[in-house]
């Protein structure tokens, strides 16, 4: 320890989840937040996020204090706000450090999230900076988990597919930006397309899930057709209708 400075400034790039705000109505924001967080409470707990205000930054009616409180109530930790114009009303009123869009732009719907802490394999998802300051998210290779995913564990396949060869126990969370394949019994939660990919699907050999979700459209266990339980199934989105059907 001795000989080393007590603090050191270092540059670094981090991938962060960004929360894009599309409404100025506190109730609407709260409802949407609640839905998101309920899908994967463990995943969102105390997650650092950037609040993307750009869609609403010129609306003076937006109550930014209230927004921050809501975000806090749902156990997210806002660390910065992102705007296009640093002199916009929202940028001036929000009590957070403000990043302007001259910096890296979050890709349309493909917000990126931090890698999970529990045993998921690293996926090569380092964003590349291209001219014009736009981040191109490379499509990551699949994350393959060869051991069972246990209760309380979470695996997030960032930017790609998740393949689980064993089972996913009750209370386990499987999360992927793209498809999820489970070859053992699926007894926990499976959420695919979490960053907005509505074409993502879940495939499993034995459907016993507590909850399944595609791009935020979810169904809990009670709404999964009883005749499909324990059967091979696929789950996909037809418009905004979540389809759960037998795999033949």
């Amino acid at each position, binding site marked *: 320890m001795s000989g080393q400075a007590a603090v050191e400034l270092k540059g670094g790039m981090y991938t962060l989840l960004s929360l894009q705000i599309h409404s100025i109505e506190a109730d609407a924001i709260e409802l949407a937040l609640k839905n998101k967080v309920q899908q994967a409470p463990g995943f969102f707990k105390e997650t650092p996020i950037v609040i993307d205000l750009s869609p609403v930054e010129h609306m003076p009616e937006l109550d930014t204090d209230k927004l921050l409180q809501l975000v806090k109530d749902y156990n997210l930790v806002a660390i910065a706000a992102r705007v296009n114009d640093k002199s916009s009303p929202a940028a001036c009123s929000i009590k957070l450090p403000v990043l302007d869009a001259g910096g890296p732009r979050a890709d349309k719907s493909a917000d990126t999230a931090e890698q999970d802490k*529990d*045993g998921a394999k690293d996926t090569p998802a380092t964003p590349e900076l291209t001219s014009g300051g736009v981040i191109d998210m490379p499509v990551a290779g699949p994350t393959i988990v060869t*051991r*069972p*995913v*246990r*209760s*309380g*564990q979470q695996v997030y396949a960032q930017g790609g597919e998740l393949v689980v060869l*064993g*089972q996913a*126990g*009750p*209370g*386990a969370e499987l999360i992927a930006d793209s498809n999820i394949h489970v070859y*053992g*019994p699926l007894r926990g939660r499976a959420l695919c397309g979490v960053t907005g990919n509505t074409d993502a699907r879940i495939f499993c050999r034995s459907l016993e899930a507590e909850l399944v979700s595609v791009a935020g459209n979810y169904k809990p266990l009670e709404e999964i057709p009883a005749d499909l339980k324990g059967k091979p199934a696929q789950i996909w989105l037809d418009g905004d209708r979540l389809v759960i059907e037998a795999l033949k």
Partner: protein
Amino acid sequence: MSKIIVVTSGKGGVGKTTTSASIATGLAQRGFKTCVIDFDVGLRNLDLIMGCERRVVYDLVNLVNQEASLQQTLIKDKRVDNLYILPASQTRDKDALTIEGVARVIHKLKQNEFDYIICDSPAGIEKGAKMALYFADEAIITTNPEVSSVRDSDRILGILQSESRRAKMDEEPVKEHLLITRYNPNRVQEGQMLSVDDIVDLLAIPLLGIIPESQAVLEASNAGKPVILDDESNAGQAYNDAIARLLGEERPHRFMEAQKKGFLKRLFG
């Protein structure tokens, strides 16, 4: 090379201490130099089941704090050669243990050429349980045939996979064994308990043994004697089978069938 085996479960009261005592005794009986460590700091129990509570002078916390030597702390079993007990402290709180301190103790045991080190974990999934499983090479997941116990076992398996030393060092994973304890085939048949097949299907790890629910366990622990020494009892025999399997022998599983009612009972209901 010493092999470190943790006996763990998540849920409390499922039979971890009973199992630790019998497994350690059985290994020692087969000639392996064995030490069984009570990690349940504050609630020591193992010394009672091993019948050595009056001989406890120093304990694991003293050893971790370097207030006593290994020789002073280890209690040599009076019945079985090669068997040593490292008792927990009754007075200290759970935070008295540190990874560095436990590492030192394990290192000393290895230097003393122990073949097996059995770690009796406290209940829960908090620090105490994590401390007990951290150094494990193998784990005996002790599970009762009920949903809450199976669920806790699943969680403990997750912790073994992500928070054990082997996981952190990216070494070969901890070898997992399922031990179903307090199994009551009659209650399984009546649908009041999960069956062996249900549990194996839910946890998907290899089955080490099935210990039947048995009055002999209570009698043995009241007598301060591990039940494996009662070789007349079902439970004692089942622990013996489990040890044989742990050492690589193949043995068919027993004590899974419901008791057939006797002729008179059948006649009179």
